[in-house]
């Protein structure tokens, strides 16, 4: 989309020097705190609703829920401008929501309806939204990273080559721990550094790639006993930071720093967020491999109650005010289901649309009628 100056976001100018620092309360404005809390509530409520709808047969296929990782999506994406880019994975519902894609259209997409963000043709793993610069949604791990790198490149090109001062958009690429063993990841780290691109590589390390434990999939660096993904930044010429992904303030602070760096033309950053998914890899995953002790440890660090507790303790909001936010978000989620339910299915002829730029390429015959009888 064309560069758009959205309403000025309240970006807390946090001067965080150490990684994994817990964000200080003074860095977060009251409005921003509410924004983050409501966004996490939306992420959680929406995904819980997805699980319900899936078991009721309203949603099909491979659905990967984000429960537990909300602090990362909210902390990073709510620090972005509307015209910044986000590139995600198959675990993309919440990234889309944080980016501002209306819950109605995300739910409709999941139900396969024509009012879905991709006209019902993408489904759970392919959330694309041009007005929000949400570049998807990829079923294939690592597939989105080069795409994000390209988006960052076009920003840098407009700024440095075409001299457009307003071209200061930032791109965030999200991916998991497993993906960090994929060739595409390394190729893009190198290119981002070489071309000094305004991109932030956001690793959502939830320790598991389906059934493969990160600690058994990734070799440690020399001298280490465990793997550290954030350390892979420096060999590729960019800062690498480890962040507590269960603490939305820490995430937000780290994101702000990396965003400021990118926007100033100083190049890429690699951020590793320690996080956890409370549910299985997908709704079809029996999740038998992860130990209960590990799950309990992370359940105790649930980002939502943790943040709520902080807000109450610091007197930023009262119990009633927070409850009102919770109710507000609940209503949004329920409305999205009603909207999706009431929406129509895609027309049959939609199958043949958008294969090529010219729909007559394969889809429409000389007489202007659709060709879907052709191969029957």
């Amino acid at each position, binding site marked *: 989309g064309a560069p758009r100056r959205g309403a000025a976001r309240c970006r807390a100018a946090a001067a965080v020097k150490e990684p994994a620092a817990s964000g200080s309360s003074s860095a977060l404005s009251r409005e921003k705190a509410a924004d983050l809390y409501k966004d996490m509530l939306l992420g959680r409520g929406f995904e819980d609703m997805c699980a319900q709808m899936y078991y009721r047969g309203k949603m*099909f*296929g*491979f659905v990967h829920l984000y429960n537990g990782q909300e602090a990362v999506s909210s902390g990073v994406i709510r620090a972005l401008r509307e015209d910044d880019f986000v590139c995600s994975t198959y675990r993309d519902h919440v990234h889309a929501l944080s980016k501002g894609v209306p819950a109605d259209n995300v739910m409709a997409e999941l139900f*396969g309806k024509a009012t879905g963000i991709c006209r*019902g*043709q*993408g*489904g*759970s*793993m*392919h959330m694309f939204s041009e007005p929000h610069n949400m570049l998807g949604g990829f*079923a*294939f*791990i*690592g597939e989105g990273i080069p795409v994000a790198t390209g988006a960052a490149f076009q920003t840098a090109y407009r700024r440095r080559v075409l001299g457009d001062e307003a071209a200061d958009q930032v791109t965030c690429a999200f991916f998991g721990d*497993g*993906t960090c*063993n*994929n*060739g595409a990841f390394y190729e893009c780290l190198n290119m981002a550094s070489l071309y000094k691109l305004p991109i932030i590589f956001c690793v959502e390390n939830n320790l598991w*790639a*389906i*059934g*493969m434990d990160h600690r*058994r*999939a*990734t070799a440690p660096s020399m001298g280490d006993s465990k793997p550290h993904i954030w350390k892979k930044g420096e060999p590729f010429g960019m800062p690498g930071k480890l962040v507590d992904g269960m603490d939305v303030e820490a995430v937000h602070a780290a994101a702000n720093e990396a965003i400021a760096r990118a926007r100033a033309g100083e190049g890429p950053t690699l951020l590793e967020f320690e996080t956890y998914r409370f549910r299985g890899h997908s709704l079809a995953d029996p999740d*038998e*491999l992860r130990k209960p002790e590990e799950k309990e440890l992370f359940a105790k660090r649930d980002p939502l109650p943790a943040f709520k507790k902080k807000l109450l303790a610091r007197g930023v909001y009262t119990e009633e005010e927070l409850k009102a936010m919770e109710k507000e978000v609940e209503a949004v989620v329920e409305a999205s289901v009603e909207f999706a339910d009431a929406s129509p*299915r*895609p027309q*049959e002829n*939609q*199958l*043949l649309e958008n*294969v090529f730029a010219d729909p007559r390429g*394969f889809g429409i015959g000389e007489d202007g009628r659709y060709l*879907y009888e052709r*191969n*029957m």
Partner: protein
Amino acid sequence: TAVNEALHEALESDGKAVVFGEDVGFGGVFRCTTGLAERFGRDRVFNTPLCEQGIVGFGVGLAAMGHRAIAEVQFADYIFPAMDQLVNEAAKYRYRSGGQWDCGGLTVRAPCGAVGHGGHYHSQSPEAYFTHTPGLKVVVPSGPREAKGLLLASIRDPNPVVFFEPKMMYRTSVEDVPEGDYELPLGEARVVREGSDATLVGWGPQVKVLVAAAKELEETDGAQCEVIDLRTLLPWDYETVCASVSKTGRLVVSHEASFTGGFGAEIAAFVSERCFLRLESPPVRVCGQDTPFPGHAHEPLFLPTQQKVVEAVRSSIGY
């Protein structure tokens, strides 16, 4: 599963056979590798990190050094990063080294095909891309009994084999699978049903559809269709198919993969040339639409359904 049994047999009978891929350690996302790690040890059955190109490439090297490397690609849709290693390395190893080395020991297994809710990236049938590669063999079983025998044959075949397992059949297919070690020949098609009015050729999950169409046509039109399960696509058994078409005079090829450039095109072209004077009607292909594999809502419209096959056979017969 039959595939699981085949893998047990393969590892049992050859001490240099290894199985690897994403998540195979716990049995894999389709349970094909259940019990293997426990029985044969994690040195022979192991998980790899997420890197298809690396997995297959590493398999090429392992096979070149004399092992039976059985690599699993979690979904056929993910095989594309590995395509370079398959097409440029595995297929050409024997040829370019003048026979000094080969990676005949390499077998790449990948679940393929529509499953009802797979969407764009868990439903594809990419066999056509690989049939265009001399040096590789491409095999697609149509059921559990076939799968076990064909997989064992593929593993033991002295050429690199890409083995596509229709994922729909992991759960839906119920068949008696013979116990123990047995192989089914590669490069030989199987005549599933005999008939003299039309030849229907398919592979994998489409074979069931063709059989159902043949039954319907027998009941409604009294037509007797011969159904052939190709089993191996490269090299394909053109003798069996041509003999059949010489008898029936009509050919209908059907596959889930898209129409244009699908493997059906190769079969139709070859048969047109070889059996020209025996044909009563032009060879016809009933295939997936020329679009990317669609989302759930459009899947039935995309696929070559029984109804579409029946109509195609009917028009052939009535030509």
